[in-house]
């Protein structure tokens, strides 16, 4: 499922990132990679989502969020 469909308050794992090359490299440097654990904190009606990754909070616009695919997190 894509990050815009993920449930607020739940924890997921990144499986795939289909975003622009430039943004992909930025996300990777921030520690958002395939396999990373992501917590969904909040979402706006337009799809912009607040996530928590490695102890930091990020707001992602809907274009970026819809390009990130997730699966349920199992420890």
């Amino acid at each position, binding site marked *: 499922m894509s990050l815009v469909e993920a449930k607020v308050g739940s924890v997921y794992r990144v499986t795939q990132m289909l975003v622009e090359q430039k*943004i992909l490299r*930025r996300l990777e440097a921030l520690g958002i990679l395939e396999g990373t654990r992501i917590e969904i904190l909040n979402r*706006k009606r337009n799809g*912009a989502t607040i996530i928590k990754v*490695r102890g930091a909070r990020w*707001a*992602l616009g*809907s274009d970026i969020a819809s390009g990130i695919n997730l699966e349920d997190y199992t420890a």
Partner: protein
Amino acid sequence: MKNYISVAFVGNPNCGKTTLFNAFTGANLKVANWPGVTVERKEGETSYKGQKIKLIDLPGIYSLTSYSMEEKVSRKAILDEEIDVIVNIVDASAMERNLYLTLQLLEMGKPVILALNMMDIVEERGMEIDLHRLPEMLGHIPVVPVSARKRTGLDVLLHAVKHHYEEQNTDPVVSYTPDIEDKIEVLEHMLHEKWPEDTNLRWHALKILENDEEILKEHPLDTSEVVDKNYEKIIINQKYDYIEEIVEETLFYKNQKEEKTEKIDRILTHRIWGVPVFLGIMALVFFCTFTVGDAVKGIFEAGLDYAFAGMTHLLTSLHASDWMVSLIVDGIMAGVGGILTFLPNIFILFLALAVLEDSGYMARVAYVMDGIMGRVGLSGKAFLPMVLGFGCTVPAIMASRTLEKESDRKRTMLLTPFMSCSARLPIYVLFADMFFGKYAMIVAFSLYALGLVMAILLALILRKFSKSKGEANLLIELPEYKTPNARTIWIYVWEKVKDYLTKAGTTIFVASIVIWFILNYNTSGMVTDVTTSFGASMGKWLEPLLAPAGLGMWQIAVALISGLSAKEVVISSFSVLYGISNINSLEGMGQLSQILAGQNFGALNAYALMVFCLLYTPCVATLATIRKETHSSKWTMMTVFFQLAVAYLAAVLVFQIGSLF
């Protein structure tokens, strides 16, 4: 041989780097740009036990790749010989993210000292950090707990700088998997053969594996046999794996509490309440600007009256000639002094903006406004320069640098001047007070709202005409909320107050003299009747053009033209034009409104005037900034005419529709 140690401050955005830097240097800093790029460079000085230490504040960055200007600048500066030692500021409450930069810094080979900031938040959250194990896992670099806000640990940090600035890091901190380590070794050999002088071979080898553009350009090597693909992702992953190890071994949770930030965010970033809360906060800011500012204003006015009396007395006792008295009292003092009485309003406005910024709320505004901005084809991030525009358009235009796409940046620059800056504030304070009495504040609010609505409306129209599709690629960190730091706020506000005073002493000073001159002279010398002056003839020529907007008075034409130097000058011009000594006082306002009423200038005209002042061509300083940031005179000229047209149309509409009732 230089006699000082130069220290670079490096850290993530929001790690408290600037607060720490300010704690050492105070407001005494040199601010410039890095050569060739529009990235700010701050420099200060301190000393420790007789040792002079030069501090250089590098831009806040998350990593040391070469994707952004900030990262490139930082990387170059660190590799540069000028810098002896790096102080890496790490937000202890967000170690996992902050340590990534640390690991990259360590690989570069320069001595690194870790300043562990925000330990108080760590404690507050019931966490503990093992300060013995942490340095062990980071190649035994000095780790110094500091609090930038409480100003503790500062001496210990300087002590570490003085004693460790010559220690190079030699042992690798992160060991990668054997296949990568093998490749690093091969590359190190190849690099050493071709560039025997290079010292940080490991770093260069890693960068070649990561396919780093800049390093590949500087070190052209045929590495096709070693580097079969881009290893960047693998290297990043392994660094984060190591960070996870560090966190596991050094960070302990005793009794983790729910984070304050999350609680606050539930309200401030609420999917429905987020926008109303933001608008409410802004309304509160303007309310304070008007009421508190007005309360203090009295003192300033009394002071100004006193100064007027004193100066007139002094000049007459010196038997100064009439024109001299007129120039100083009616020209300079009326023009400059009138502007100074608005200082309390300006002060409160910037204080409020500083608090919003330092508390961590601003980043939330980008998220909250992402929906609305998305509709006009911009990301929520583009709204941040616009909010700053309520303070001053010049830094706001510069803040649009944070937007990546050139077209987004240009559009934001076109819209930002519609945000009502603090220079326009005196115009509203004065005219709203004079003509709208107890409704003054509502009238002033309506102008702020109008600016915002106009900006969004125009963005919508512009979007229809532009080919590029808007992207919703917001990516911004939402930092921990914190109590604003008094020192940081003070430095910020003081800078703005200083700017305002400087402007009063320079631009407004000169403009006042020029206005006085054109109003008191014509080709045959000094005039006794102002209507025969240069200014009057120039203004009269524009009268018919301004008449449909209810502004068909030559005095207003003169005031508006002089307002191009700085918008406050509109007020200065009125003071000089009508010879009112203390325009912002009750007495001064009474005088002015009486004169204006005599010229058939009523509330509707006043509102049209305020609308025009809100929207028309920004001041020269803003135009110069737009020119500098866009590198395009054409674009700048377009801004000039575009805004002039918008202002004219809006003022005409207001006046014509208003006249129907």
